[in-house]
């Protein structure tokens, strides 16, 4: 399978993880650019993944690999690594493409290591100028302040790549017809060393930011808990929900349920006003869907300005109170 691409999809509940089809679109594109064939794999308990494999059979793929085993009923790194190492040895792809999910972060680096390889992780773009030169994978350094372009060193090994949320469009997946094949990995219960529990939530979520039309969100730049009242006053003036980036919730200044980002809520308001938020990628993936983004930050190089429609490089301690006052004035006038 020279230049072949194998996309490893992730399930969630009885369906797909939302990033699975983004990875599939990335894999189809890479295969087309490199002149190879694209296949996809889904892992789980055989009966549970059969309908998902049937859905994949309607996509433009060479083969859909249904990797079923009772020991794959629940995710474990040991189970996934063993099953995928065997599948890769069988299919012999040149590229393995995965969505950069929490689950992938848990097993893919070790899977690559087992094969003497390195995962090129959290990739935002894949560029193929000339197929013979191979692809260039773009990933972010310094919390998004730099782009670094990577190539796989060659030597005939498998190139492992995970793609960042939102970097490829899931609706770009091409339809077609493909053959479903079952792959039965040899797994031993004794070799699965971790015992995972069921997923749970700490407390019932009482704040649903996902439907808020206006959000004022605060980050590290606020400096101290005491200063939060500035942002709260702005939120009140705007009739907005208040949200935050992770460090603010880590510090306990706002409850965890107000966190926007990969480990918090995903929002899509009409207006997202980011105050003192640098825009680390873990935060951006949670708010990229906002219709209008206004960012106030003292650092002109902050990545939040990459996604902002309107930017203010300045001191939030001056701009925020002035804005609150102006909004209150406008409401009265």
């Amino acid at each position, binding site marked *: 399978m020279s230049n072949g691409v194998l996309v490893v999809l992730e399930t969630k509940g009885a369906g797909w993880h939302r990033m699975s089809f983004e990875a599939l679109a990335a894999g189809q594109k890479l295969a087309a650019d490199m002149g190879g064939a694209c296949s996809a794999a889904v892992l789980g308990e055989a009966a549970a993944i059969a309908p998902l494999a049937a859905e994949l059979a309607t996509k433009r793929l060479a083969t859909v690999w249904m990797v079923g085993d009772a020991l794959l009923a629940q995710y474990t790194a040991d189970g996934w690594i063993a099953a995928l190492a065997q599948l890769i040895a069988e299919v012999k792809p040149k590229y393995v493409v995965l969505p950069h999910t929490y689950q992938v972060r848990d097993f893919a680096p070790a899977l690559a290591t087992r094969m003497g390889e390195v995962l090129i992780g959290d990739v935002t773009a894949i560029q193929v100028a000339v197929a013979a030169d191979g692809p260039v994978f773009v990933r972010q350094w310094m919390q998004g302040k730099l782009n670094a372009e990577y190539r796989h060193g060659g030597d005939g090994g498998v190139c492992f790549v995970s793609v960042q949320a939102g970097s490829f469009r899931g609706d770009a997946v091409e339809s077609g017809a493909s053959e479903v094949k079952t792959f039965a990995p040899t797994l031993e219960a004794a070799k699965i060393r*971790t015992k995972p529990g069921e997923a*749970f939530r700490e407390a019932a979520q009482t704040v649903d930011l996902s439907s808020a039309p206006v959000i004022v969100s605060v980050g590290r730049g606020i400096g101290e808990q005491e200063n939060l009242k500035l942002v709260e006053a702005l939120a009140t003036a705007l009739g907005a929900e208040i949200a935050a980036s992770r460090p603010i919730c880590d510090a306990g200044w706002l409850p965890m349920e107000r966190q926007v980002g990969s480990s918090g809520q995903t929002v899509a308001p009409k207006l997202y006003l980011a105050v003192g938020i640098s825009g680390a990628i873990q935060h951006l993936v949670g708010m990229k869907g906002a219709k209008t983004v206004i960012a106030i930050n003292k650092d002109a190089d902050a990545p939040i300005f990459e996604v902002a429609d309107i930017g203010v490089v300045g001191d939030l301690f001056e701009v925020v109170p002035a804005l609150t006052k102006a909004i209150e004035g406008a409401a009265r006038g």
Partner: protein
Amino acid sequence: MKIVVAVKQVPERDAVVRVAADGRGLDERDVTWTMNEPDAYALEEALQLKERAGEAEVVVLCAGPERVQSTLREALAKGADRAVHVVTPESGAGSLGERDSLDVARLLAEAVKAEAADLVLTGLQSDDLGAGQTGVVMAELLGVPHATLVLQVELLGNGIKVKRELEDGWMQQVEMPLPALLTVQSGGNRLRYATLMGIKRARQKEMREVSAAAAAKRVDEVVKVSPPTRVKRTEMLTGSADEIAATLVERLRFEVKVL
């Protein structure tokens, strides 16, 4: 019980970021360095485990040039018992920048093997390169089970139970035997500061230097580093705070239509 905490020294968050002259790395000349934040949480978890267990040794481990000793000293001042410094050149062959994530994890794993640790902790990712792989790769190299995105660790009779983060605010408990490796998510604990007494004591604590193995051939290669090109046209507002506020109100009213 012996706990090894692998930490990384990274540029400070507000550091001015410039591309190195060769266009393939970070210009480190004016950078001020600090302990990678997720690693600080890993250290905190180790110190709290020691306090709960009553008896344990916390060994802090870092690979890098001479400068990383300031980060190791900081960890000692916070309460780690001793430090191991895997010494790599500042730049050029064998430096961290010339090694891929597999090779850096190999350096750390070799040092961990020599310690025969019961538990290895590290942050879930670095704030500079953000690969988020070192811990998981080390677990594979050491042949021990692992869990990522860990917020809490509980010692059981002959193993551990951890609370780890899933996506969208979901959590999960996972049990595993020791030895094991955990990558720690930020926010599980409050970070402690080093006390004056701690800083004083740190000077007396052992800092062992071990030489790094020669770099292996890289699997991946960084061909170019550059500032990102803007995908969106951002309108930057300038002026006094009042002028900016007035412009914003106008936009909020007539374009965004939220006023």
